[in-house]
C-alpha cells in the first residue's frame, strides 16, 4: 500500500455560537494517497468545508493532527503552514476567488510569485511564465490568457483557478464545491480535469453534494454529524 500524502488524525473542530459551541468535526480520521481522487459527500452544513479547511491548514483543529508528507503540519507555526499551503497544497474554491486586477495568466502565476523573493523571481521568470502558459493551454484558455476574470465565463474562471492550483506542482489538490457555481457541462469539464490530475499523481479531495460524483469515484467518503463514513 502506498504511503498517504495527507492524513487527518482525530480532527476535532467547534465554533462558538450564541447557544454555546457547535461541534463540527468530532474526531475525523482520513487518509489520502497520491493519485487518489476522493469525493467527500454530505449535506450542506455537515462540516465538509471545515474538514477541507483543516486539511488545507486554513483552520487549526481543536484536537487531532493533520499530517502532510508524513510530517505533522497543523501543529507547526503560521509561517511554516503558509509555506506548506504554497508549496504542497492547491486550492480550488466554489467562488473561484480570482484577483480581478490580474489577467488569467497573472492569476495562474500568483502562487509562484508568492513562493519567490525578488532575485529568485527574476531568475526563474521565464520558466514560470512558460509553465503558466502551458497550464492555461492545458485547461484550454490560451486565447484568454490576457483577459481579466470579469471578461471570462464561470467555467473559464474555474479553469483558471484549477491552473493556478497546479502552478507550484502541489502534492494535494483541495476543491471545495468546484462545480457549485457552474452549469452541468462546465462542471463536468472541471471534474474530468480533476480526475486527470489525480491520474497524473496528485491526491485530489473534492467536497461536493453531487451524489453522482461519489458513484463514479473508486472511493468516496460521506460526512454525517461531524464524522466520516466510507462509501456512499
Amino acid at each position, binding site marked *: 500500500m502506498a504511503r498517504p500524502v495527507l492524513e487527518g488524525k482525530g480532527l476535532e473542530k467547534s465554533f462558538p455560537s450564541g447557544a454555546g459551541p457547535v461541534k463540527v468535526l468530532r474526531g475525523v480520521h482520513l487518509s489520502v494517497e497520491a493519485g487518489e481522487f476522493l469525493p467527500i459527500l454530505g449535506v450542506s452544513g455537515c462540516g465538509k468545508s471545515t474538514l477541507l*479547511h483543516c486539511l*488545507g491548514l*486554513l*483552520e487549526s483543529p481543536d484536537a487531532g493532527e493533520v499530517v502532510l508528507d508524513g510530517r505533522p503540519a497543523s501543529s507547526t507555526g*503560521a*509561517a511554516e503552514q*503558509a*509555506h*506548506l*499551503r*504554497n*508549496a504542497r497544497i492547491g*486550492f480550488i*474554491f466554489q*467562488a473561484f*476567488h480570482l*484577483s*480581478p*486586477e*490580474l489577467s488569467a495568466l497573472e492569476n495562474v502565476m*500568483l*502562487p509562484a*510569485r*508568492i*513562493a*519567490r*523573493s*525578488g532575485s529568485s*523571481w527574476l531568475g526563474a521568470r521565464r520558466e514560470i511564465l512558460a509553465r503558466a502558459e502551458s497550464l492555461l493551454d492545458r485547461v484550454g484558455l490560451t486565447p484568454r490568457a490576457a483577459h481579466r476574470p470579469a471578461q471570462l465565463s464561470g467555467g473559464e474562471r474555474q479553469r483558471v483557478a484549477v491552473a*493556478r492550483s497546479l502552478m507550484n506542482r502541489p502534492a494535494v489538490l483541495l476543491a471545495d464545491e468546484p462545480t457549485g457555481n457552474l452549469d452541468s457541462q462546465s462542471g463536468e469539464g472541471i471534474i474530468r480535469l480533476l480526475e486527470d490530475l489525480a491520474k497524473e499523481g496528485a491526491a485530489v479531495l473534492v467536497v461536493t453534494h453531487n451524489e453522482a460524483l461519489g458513484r463514479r469515484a473508486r472511493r468516496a467518503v460521506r460526512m454525517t454529524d461531524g464524522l466520516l463514513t466510507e462509501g456512499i
Partner: protein
Amino acid sequence: MYVLFLATRYLRSLWLTYLAVGMVFAGVFAMLVVLSVMWGLEDFTRRTLRGPLSDVIVSRPHGLRMDETGVLCGRIRAVAGVKAAWPVVEGAGLIRQGSYSRGVQIYGLDYADPEASRELRRFVEAKRKKAVTWPPSSTDGAAVFLGEHLDIGEEGDEVDFVTAAESPSYSPTPTMPSVSRVSGKVAGRFLSRSYWEDAMGVYLPLAQAQRLFRLNHPPCANRLHVRLADGIDDRAAAIAIQDALGPDYRAMGWSRIAAQQVEMLAVENQIIAVIMAFMIVLAGFGILAVLNMQVTHKIGEIGLLKALGGGRLGVAGIFLLSGTAIGLVGASLAVALGLPFLHHINGVNAWLMSTLGWEGFYMARAYGTDGIPVLIRPGAVVAIAGGAVLASALAALWPAWRATRLHPTEALRNG
C-alpha cells in the same frame, strides 16, 4: 516579489488612490511654497532690520573715542569666526542745504575698504538697480550718500553737516559742546529697505566724519564693525570678542540689538510651519481612509493570498508599501513641481496680475520688496518630503495590521 506587484495593481485599481496622492501633493506643495516664501521674507526682513549694522558692533561706554583702531581690529580679527573688522564713526547731526536742515544719523566709512563699504555699495546698487563704480570719485569733495526718503538734496548738490560735538575724551569737569561743520557733495541715494535708515541715514567718507565728530586728532573712531564668516552665531562671537578686548569695550551681536523683531519673525515662521504640518497629517488620514477602504474592498483577495501561502508580513507589506508609495509619489511630484514654481513665482504672480486683472500678492507694497522673496532650504525640502513619506507609511500601519488580522476562511467567505 508579489508584495510590490500586488501593491501596484491594487493602487492602480482604486481611483481613490489618486485622491490620496493628490492630498499628499497638495500638503507638501503648499508647505514647500508657503515656508520658502516665509523664509524668504524672514531673510529679507532680517537684512532689512539689520540695515547698515554689521554682525557685531564694538563700542565704548558713553560713546568714548576708540584710539588705535588698527590694533583693536587686529585683536578682533584673531577671534575665531571673524572675517573682517573696521572702524566706523557714527553719530547724530544736522544736514543743511541753504536754510533748510534736517536731523540725520551719520555714518562715516572708509569707502576704499571693500568690507567696510560692502553694505553701502549694495544699498546704492539697490537704489540704482545696477552695479556702480566703487569707490566713488572724491575729486569734487566728500562723496555723500543720502537715504532714499531723506527729503533734502539732489545728486550733485553741495550739503553741509553740523554737529554740536563735545570732546569725545573723558573729562572730570563738564564741557560745553561746540558746533562742528563739514561739507560734502551728494553722490547718490541708497535704499536699505529699512524706512528709518532710508529717511534718516547719511553716509560720509570716514575722514570727513572723523572731522565732523572731532575724532581726527589723531584719527580714531567711536565704533568698530565686525563681519563674521557664514554660519557663525553673532551672539556667541560677540562674547568672544568682548573677552578678547576686555571690560573697557562692549561688543554686541546685531540680532541682540534687534532681538525682539528677530525672535518675533522666527516664532511666526515656526507657528506657520506647525500649521502647515497639519496638512501633511490630514493627508495621512486620507491615506489611512483610502487603504482601510481597500482592505474592506479586498477581503476576499486577502483571504486568497493567505490560502495561497502569503504570510502575515507579505500581506501587511502590500498595504505598507501602498501607503509609502502614495506618499512617495505625492511628495516627489510636489517637489518636482514646487521647486520650478518657486523659481518662477514672480513670473506667475505677474502673469496673474496681467492676465486675470488680479492684483496678485501685495509683497512689494507690504514689505517693500522687488517681488516675492523666496529662500529654498535644501535640508527643509528633504525634511518636508521625507516627513510626508513617513506620515504616509505610518498612516498605512492600521490598515496593514487589519489585513494581517483577517482569518483566511472568514475572509474567503466574506470576500
